[in-house]
């Protein structure tokens, strides 16, 4: 049971994280550290390690590509950019998300009221 909950949570978070990464990149090219800073401040991710497999996977799906840029404070950086497919994908995700939020809000609000009334009985 608990494993399933963890799994579901992970699935949810994964979808949301991908959505967020794409959204951030829509605003402009960024390298992983920048993306992480953004997501950290929004408390979406706790640890940086999470980001790298996601970026690689998105890139392999053809939603992102990157270019190398020299850095003064360390190794060269990978600057990620949304591809056209990525932008289409993001638009679709955005729509789905909006729908989802609306639907979920509706369902969960009702659910909570039923649960609460049940609990009171």
């Amino acid at each position, binding site marked *: 049971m608990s*494993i399933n909950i963890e799994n579901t949570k992970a699935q949810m978070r994964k979808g949301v994280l991908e959505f967020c990464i794409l959204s951030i990149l829509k605003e402009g090219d960024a390298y992983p550290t920048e993306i992480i800073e953004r997501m950290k401040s929004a408390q979406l991710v706790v*640890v940086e*390690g999470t980001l790298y497999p996601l970026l*690689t996977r998105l890139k392999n799906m053809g939603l992102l590509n990157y270019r190398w840029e020299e*850095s003064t404070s360390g190794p060269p950086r990978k600057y990620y950019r949304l591809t056209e497919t990525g932008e289409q994908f993001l638009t679709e995700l955005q729509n789905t998300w909006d729908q989802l939020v609306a639907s979920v809000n509706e369902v969960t609000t009702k659910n909570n009221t039923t649960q609460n009334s049940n609990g009171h009985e």
Partner: protein
Amino acid sequence: MNKTVTINISGIVFHIEEDAYQRLYNYLESLRRKFQNEEGRDEILADIESRIAEILTQKKGPNREVVIMKDIDEVIEMMGQPEDISDAEEKETSSNENDDRAQQEYAQRRNRRRLFRDIDDKVIGGVCSGIGHYFDVDTIWIRLGFAALFFIGGTGVLFYLLLMIIIPRAETTAEKLEMRGEPVDVNNISRTIKEEFEEFGNRMKDFGKEAKDWGKSQKEKYKYEYRYNRRTYPRRGPDDFFRGIFHVIGRFFGFLMVFIGISFLIGILTSTFSVTSFGPDAVIFQIRSLFETPWSYSLGIVAFLLVFGIPTLMMIYYGFKILFRLQRADRWVGISALVLWIAGIILGIISVMDIAEGFSEGAEHRNKFNVVNAGMDTVSVRVNIDPDMENDDYRSKWNRRYHFEKRWHMIHTDETTIKFGYAQLDIVPATGDSIELIVYKNAMGRTHEEAKRRCDDIEYNITQSGNEFVFPSAFTIGKEYAWKGQEVDVELRLPVGTVIYLDPTTEDLIYDIENVYDVLDDDMVDRRWRMTKTGLECIDCAGLEIPKSATTSEVKSDTAKSDSAK
């Protein structure tokens, strides 16, 4: 004070404390395992490493050159433990069990085992415990093995010292971990090759993909080489594949070299030092008896050991190096081995020349035995076998004289070495009417005088009682003398018509006596013979199998001669 290690992360060099290095290394390994099923594993790791390099660069200030444990802890906290990183691969949960096993295998594969001496568990130098760790065998068996080898001519001692020189001590934490790493067997050697193939393929694929973006400098990113374990994160290329194959072949040869070397070593040491009652000791006695003094004998032994032992030891040494991929700065080993070997050759030449010089002059001592009643027409010959030599032990040695030098033998007892030789008796027709018995003593030496003195010191006393000549079973040459070609030849001259009886005891005394039938010495004893002009003729040879081809012609010519005489 802390030891530091130099590492290269994403092309940037860091000096890192050893324990911090170990933690970072383990962390990266755990990530690697975490992402093992991920398609872009290498890329993910390269990205993470690149980020780590960035963080560490920021931490490194003008006042601090070295990366310490705290930095690594912070890096790990930022990047997250593998379990904190939300991994999204769906199959993770569906096939948990398989993954666990795969992960375990992977962890093992990454952690190659190397041979070290375990100085924490040592009796002398930790060689046995180190070998025990390497082969996953309880140390006690290795120690027992060495103890057993010790009794084979002391081979164990030499072997142990050799291993102590070759095998490095496990000093650092990293080395101690490597000492107990993955076991080495055929399975994982073949796995290594397979792995190297796969990795190579992946690299080439990735390389092709990314070359467009980054060009040549992309290659730099894979130059993630730790100073201490280059093979763990190597830059893979075609050369790695060949290196893999060479490693397998090399290890096989290394094993052969060690195996053959140890066999040789045992052979050399046992043949030199063991005093057993069988086998090569007879030869060794013979060789020992060539040396005039114990000192020159020791010199010869040292020369022998150096000339044959040094190459054998070197064979074991290099075999071990190949077998366990040990890297040691060992020019001094090779050089000192060469020096010792040349010294051995020189000693050997000196020894041989010294011995040869002892044979440079020869002398002969001729002594006519005073025969009583030289006109008698019947004589018999008997050997007085020394009762001391009658025991079984002696008998076996008596017979063995044929194995080396027919006319020479020595007996080694607890107190002393008795050297003696066997005389040879020849029976020929006499020119006159009287029986003559002549004893020739021969010997050699550095000078004619020395040779002569050796002749004089040969003791061989023939006695006569009635018409019987009694010969001693052997001649002695005096304890202090080496063997220098001492010989005793006895010639019995019989007038034609004289009858001689050869006692069975003379079997080993008579030597190639001329007889009209050409029968062998063994068949001549215990029979009566009559002297003719051409040699002895048998007069009670019933049952003697005479070699036909020789006999008929000899007998014919003999009858022809006697006919013509008539």
